[in-house]
């Protein structure tokens, strides 16, 4: 059984004219980019920032990168023991952490995979260069991006809180 139509519909041809007229009278959605700027969403994937002190040179990000755009070098150093008479500790020190944004495809797997919260997304997107070599951001520059990382939005009520309380 065909559903009953309760109110007569406007013929589609006239309705269509109404749609275009209404759209014309409303302001356009275009943002005139270089002159005016749009605020990207806080979780927009603009650039990846590095929190160097959290990095343990575990290489998980470099290994999981589909584009091989992350370059990591490090070495091991001996540190004095924590307690008197203890054994010397071995720590990994980060020498080089570069991301080549000419290769990066912004998949975010490195951010997902990092077990020590050393990589973060920042919504900043204005870092184009006239020379492609300058798209290789070293650890200093990646560290500077940390300032632009927004504080994460609060969890939804009732959401499971992971990690240390």
């Amino acid at each position, binding site marked *: 059984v065909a559903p009953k139509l309760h109110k007569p519909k406007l013929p589609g*041809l006239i309705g*269509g*004219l109404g*749609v*275009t*007229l209404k*759209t*014309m009278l*409303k302001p*356009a*959605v*275009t943002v*005139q980019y270089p002159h005016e700027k749009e605020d990207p969403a806080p979780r927009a994937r603009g650039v990846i920032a590095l929190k160097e002190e959290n990095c343990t040179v575990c290489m998980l990000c470099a290994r999981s990168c589909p584009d091989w755009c992350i370059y990591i070098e490090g070495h091991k150093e001996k540190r004095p023991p924590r307690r008197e008479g203890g054994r010397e500790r071995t720590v990994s020190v980060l020498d080089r952490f570069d991301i080549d944004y000419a290769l990066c495809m912004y998949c975010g797997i490195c951010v997902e995979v990092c077990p020590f919260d050393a990589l973060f997304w920042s919504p900043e997107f204005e870092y184009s260069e006239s020379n492609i070599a300058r798209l290789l951001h070293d650890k200093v520059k990646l560290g500077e991006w940390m300032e632009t990382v927004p504080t994460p939005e609060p969890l939804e009520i009732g959401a499971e809180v992971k990690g240390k309380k």
Partner: protein
Amino acid sequence: VTAGHALLALDVGWGTTLALKTIIVLALVPAGALILGYTFLLKVMSHMQSRLGPMDPGGFHGWYQLVGDGLKFLQKEDIMPTKADRRVFAIAPAVVVISTFLVFLVIPAGPDLVVKHLDVGVFYALAVSSLSVVGVLMAGWASANKFALLGALRAAAQLIAYELPLLLAVVGVVIQAGTMSLQGIVLGQQNGAIFGWDGLGQPYILTQFVGFALFLVAAQAELTQTPFDMPVAESELVAGYMVEYTGFRFLFFFIGEFGTAFAFAALAATLFLGGYAIPGVTGTWANILGPFVLFAKLMLVAFLMFWVRFTYPRLREDQLQAVAWKFLIPIGLANILLTGLFKVAF
């Protein structure tokens, strides 16, 4: 005639007058094409699609965009296919544009502001406007390209089919005005009265609304604009008869398209909306204000035409023919019959 000439200080012999009129008509078509192209194609269409269109060229809302495009066309290489019929290929765009120029000869912009006053003005305007079919066919045939030929044949079938409703729509006006002269039709509307009240004159759109609608639909098809743009349907025929054209020859087609839209809008404004006349203005002032009034009315009509163009999708080829022969022409004939009956009765 003397009033107008004295007003414009043009009482200088027929040679100078002729030269001036020629220059005005020659300037009018590209200027009209630019105005319509900028206002509607670039701006109105953009806003109907919720975007802004060009904003930077020229500083103010991208007004310079089309001029720049035109200049770009001029510096392009003039390419001609090897197997093209060279002479016909070269002449075809000119034929299209000339048919547009010729229409403007009879459209009055004021009591004295008309290039040539013709007693058969409407007949002449419709006759020369349909000359463009010849140019289109020439272009399609001479291109030695199957898409161009298909486009040209579609254009010919379409323009012939829609010539009839266009004509029938105008016949109603001609019967009511009792004259084919465009000046006479404008005067008929200016001096008319709506049930004895002559404050507005009597624009024929009130009595000939069916004719006005028919005229707009048929003009849309004559201009090969959406929803009747099968001759240039890019998804089927690339660009139809224009497919092999580049540079300034392509520019000619572009000017022809929008210049013709300008001409048809002016014609519709003259036939149905009272042309250059506004109530209470006569004599010298009508000569001064006439062009502006005509332009305002013309833009109104053009808005209707382009509004439809930017809203509807393309019809199918057989639907196109069916609309003309099964609907528009019978309606046009009925309109003529009714107009004739009323003319005799009152």
